[in-house]
């Protein structure tokens, strides 16, 4: 990780919510090119809301969003991917009655991504060999771990600069969780910029460079992964120490 790398994603004073129910209160954070950053926190802290706001699935009520220095709060949701931001949503959200390959094809829907479809498909298959085995299988019939791999693969098909992951370990067996985090570490090693939101704090802090602690819609701590692991408040509240 290069701490002098330019910031890729910047949030400044971001507030968002659902109708009259506000969830995020003036969140400021940044992700630099090539970094892996985690947002950790308890249930209901607003982690998923944060990612939805970054992908513009919900409209922030206040604050700024910038990608590579360009503001995009006014951008419609379906254009965010063209800025290089791809999200693996919470709960995988594959299309259950499409095949694995069709799900991956949807990931390459972006016109700029289509010429690279075949090439990226091969990359995803080499990354997740089981996906290649099951390419013509209905995505709804895959196991939880396989679905997570397919969902990550789908996000990679657009050739993103920034990869958002929303609780990729949720609902998965421990053995599978391990392999998912291995993938995340591999993404980071290959140079992807990753922003991952997780409840599994111990595991995620092992694979990222930096982290933010989000509690009740506000950033309460930030620093390198090691720093947060050593943070007393974090240890007491979340690591059972």
């Amino acid at each position, binding site marked *: 990780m290069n701490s002098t790398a330019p910031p890729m994603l910047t949030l400044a004073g971001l507030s968002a919510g659902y109708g009259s129910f506000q969830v995020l209160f003036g969140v400021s954070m940044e992700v630099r090119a090539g970094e892996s950053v985690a947002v950790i926190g308890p249930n209901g802290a607003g982690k998923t809301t944060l990612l939805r706001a970054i*992908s*513009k*699935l919900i409209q922030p009520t206040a604050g700024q969003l910038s990608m590579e220095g360009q503001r995009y709060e006014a951008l*419609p*949701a*379906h*254009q*965010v*991917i*063209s800025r290089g931001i*791809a*999200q693996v*949503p919470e709960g995988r*959200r594959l*299309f*259950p*009655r*499409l095949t694995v390959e*069709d799900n991956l*094809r*949807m*990931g*390459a*829907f*972006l016109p700029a991504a*289509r010429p690279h479809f075949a090439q990226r498909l091969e990359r995803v298959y080499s990354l997740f060999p089981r996906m290649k085995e099951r390419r013509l299988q209905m995505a709804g019939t895959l196991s939880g771990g396989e679905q997570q791999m397919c969902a990550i693969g*789908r996000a990679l098909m*657009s050739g993103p600069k920034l990869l958002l992951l929303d609780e990729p370990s949720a609902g998965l067996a421990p053995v599978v969780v391990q392999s998912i985090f291995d993938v995340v570490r591999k993404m980071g090693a290959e140079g992807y910029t990753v922003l991952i939101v997780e409840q599994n704090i111990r595991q995620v802090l092992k694979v990222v460079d930096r982290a933010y602690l989000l509690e009740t819609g506000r950033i309460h701590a930030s620093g390198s992964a090691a720093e947060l692991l050593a943070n007393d408040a974090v240890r007491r509240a979340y690591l059972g120490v």
Partner: protein
Amino acid sequence: MGQIFDVYFLEAVLNGLLLGGLFALLSLGLNLIFGVIDVVWICYAELIMVGMYAIWWMHTQQGLPLWVAMPAGIAFVGAVGAGLHQFVIRPVLAAEPINQLLVTGGVLFLLQALATVAFGVEFQNLGVRLPGVVVGEMSFSGSRLVAFATAMAAIAAAYLFLNRSYLGTAIRAISQDRAIMPLMGVDPARIYLLTSAIGGALAGLAACLLVLQYDVHPAIGLSFGPLTFLICVMGGLGNLIGGFAAAFVFAQFISVGGFFLQLEWGYVLAFGFFIATMFWKPEGLFSKRRKA
């Protein structure tokens, strides 16, 4: 006597096959709209009627050759379909399903009435005669053969589009999870609009095929509208493959039933068959999951 009976019976069965192709095309459009947008266009047959009038008008009143009038007709009804979605369906997408049904019912009235105002209630004919085909003692209308071939080609093209293209895949995907479509760069509103245009274009194509065989008048939609609904329900609403199969089954009932009795009774027989299947498999003969 027995031999002649068999030949003409065979002719009825084959005609039923040809008819089935046409019905399959009709049900494709309706099923597509419902499967994707979850709305039933009760006025679907009236869109076809409008297309038939458009082609008739361009060809007989404006002197345009058929190879101009027909594609123009398809494009026209495609635009009507898109307009229907944009101005009539979109405002009620979040409303009760009964309101969605009613609003397309209102469009049904409206289109019938507009056609009456514009062209009166007389039956109009395109005036085009295609040479028939004679096989042994059976004769088949040329326009029916053309209709069958065209319908099959269109269905094949639709299948390829839905399964091999990006837009087609998006159309298949959106009914499974609309909320995440933007994450992949898909604007759901545009997909709905596109689907509506395709549904309209399919109706326009059906209009091209029907106007070759039948006279057009404002109420002609009632001749095949309800039938299309029954076919779609029997195949499982939104199930493209099921509708395809059900179309041929229904067509056999009408053709063979019409062979033994008068034409209307063929329809009644088909309906009776439909009710019987409702007792046996209410969610549709070929439906796998969805019910209502």
